[in-house]
């Protein structure tokens, strides 16, 4: 199961968070907001600007730099 950075996933892709490889406090922040291992995400918007993901039915926008460091295990 290949893990891909969030920035490379197409709109509509569903998956689970595999790992976050950002700095310590950024990773911790993301985890606490619900992006921890195994969290279900769906890509809502990924064209220009921050990526919008659906996390358990609510939406969070992540800057591309941060989104790149979030590895997702996409649902096949």
């Amino acid at each position, binding site marked *: 199961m290949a893990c891909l950075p969030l920035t490379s996933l197409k709109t509509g892709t569903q998956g689970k968070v595999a790992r976050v490889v950002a700095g310590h406090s950024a990773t911790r922040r993301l985890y606490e907001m619900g992006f921890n291992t195994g969290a279900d995400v*769906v890509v809502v918007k990924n064209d220009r600007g921050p990526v919008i993901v659906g996390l358990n039915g609510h939406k969070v*926008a992540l800057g591309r730099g941060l989104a790149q460091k979030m590895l997702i295990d996409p649902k096949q």
Partner: protein
Amino acid sequence: MSKIIALVGNPNSGKTTLFNALTGANHHVGNWPGVTVERKEGQFRFGGDVYTVVDLPGIYSLGAFSEDEMVARDFILSGEPDVVINVVDATNIERNLYLTTQLLEMGAKVVVALNMVDEASSLSMSFDTETLAKRLGAPVVPTVASKRKGLDDLVAKAVELMQASPQGRKQPLSYGESVDVQVTRLQEVLAGKKLAYPERWVAVKLLEGDAHVRSMVQASLTSHELQEFERVYSELAAHGSDLALEIVDGRYRFVHSVTNGAVNRPKEQVLTLTDHLDRVLTHKYWGLPLFALIMFTVFQLTFALGQDVFGEWVAEGVGLVGGALDGLLLRMNAPEWLRAYTAEGLVGGVGAVLEFIPLIVILYTLMGLLEDSGYMARAAYVMDNTMRSVGLQGKTFVPLIVGFGCNVPGVMATRTLENRRDRMIAILINPFMSCGAKIPIYLAFIAAFFPAHGAVVMFSLYVLGILVALLMGKILGNTLFKGEVSHFLMELPPYRIPTIRNVVRNMWDNVAGFLVRAGTVIFLVISLLWVLAVLPGGVEPYGSESVLGRIGTLIAPIFAPAGFGNWQASVGLFSGIAAKEAVVATLGMVYAGVEEGVELISALQGAFTPLTALSFMIMTLLYTPCVATLATIRKETGSAKWALFSAIYSFGIGWLGAVLVFQVGRLLGVG
């Protein structure tokens, strides 16, 4: 001593709505000591007793990452609150329960308000609150704060819990086996030591790498105990940051064990109205123009209603009051100077400030509506790309918008920026957003020199202000505040119909703040200006021989390259440092002996040219902000040096702008 309830919850969970619903008009906004975090407190009666509610900042976690989190955590640990009401957004229950988990770890007495259950219903979600309560070990009360539903139940449960004796959790929270082992190990070392907080909580916090808890523990142990502790701690801490993340994972595991089967949601994600709206409002091409359109409409409405309609009414009212006061003083045979002070200093100066109030009432109401509806998060989103091109980020833009009304709340609004670099830059560029008090200045010069092109001139000035703000943001970001621009990370809450009570309450808090400022700082400063204008006794008031006139004559040469190197213009600008509202009245007095009206217009026409009018307006747009803003900058940055810096560098920018325009204009023969 009234009982204290702490209100805790995620941002956008409806916590503020609940606070407003409980406390009505009986609330007070202040500050937590030593930090720039707002402290909101209110009171209500229930069952014959009075209770105090303290609204803590919206937070995602009780870590120690930001001032907001620390304030909330310290308050709960202090033992001051008798019970904690944890507001949980039912539509986002898992993430919200993460905070609940931390509260339970702390051993606090918690009642969960499962808020927004109406919205959850419309999303076809359902909850087994009994099971949730049992698994959490805390009462769970469904509420709809915006419609005041469930509140009596909630308060009743909170009061009940307050009076109950504290009960430890029957079974400690599990974070997963491997982590539990380590927690227990550390707990054993701490057993029996005199610590201020529950041992297990301390152990968990230590493993999370919490520096505050660590120093607290080190301070509480004897040197022998400390050795033992440090040994075990470094062994466990060798796992490093992964351990902290495992604990976060562990808490979510606990949350899932609580919600599993007790929370039902439909399999398919239904596309909501929010999703449909966002397809347009966050569209890669249309998002930004739509934002510009919405903002333009807000300002149009503000100035049309606030300035032209209600502002005029206030002006007339002020005129009437002034006339009545003058008549009264005449009948009392009051001395001439008192009559003059009342007419020019008091009524003229303070009146100018009062005329400004309808404008800010409307602006704050409209901005409040946008904020409460959830749109402002989208505004930050669409601005992110543009802001990034100047080394800033989207969230920085929202306080700038607030600054268009008045720079004081604009600077205060930068509190939402957690990153220090973002925050400092946002504070220092805020004054370039042309505040509402400068509008009468523009209007006077436009009436005198550009009567047919008012809209274009105003719009250009505003745009110039924005461009300078962004440019200075980029420069500051590359010099004084070098560093990485922070990541954009923001929740986009579902769109909601704004709760009128929230909007009005928030608007009123802002207006009240403005009135207090106007009543104190601005009033004092305008009075001082008047005194300087009429001293020494016997000289022509507001003449070149008065103290004010002499100050003007002294500084006038600075402005010669900008085309208005006369003492009157200098006096005008000088008074603007006191309060921008004072400039027109002061100019009127020094040029024409009146404060407004056609005489002022013709006096300006005699003293300026279209080119120098333009350079003067640019100076006004960009130069030193008023003392109220400078005082706010000092408070929010925690040091006077930044206020001084702001005063000096913006004066420099204003001067440069004015000089450039004048000299280039002269070269082009516009003169």
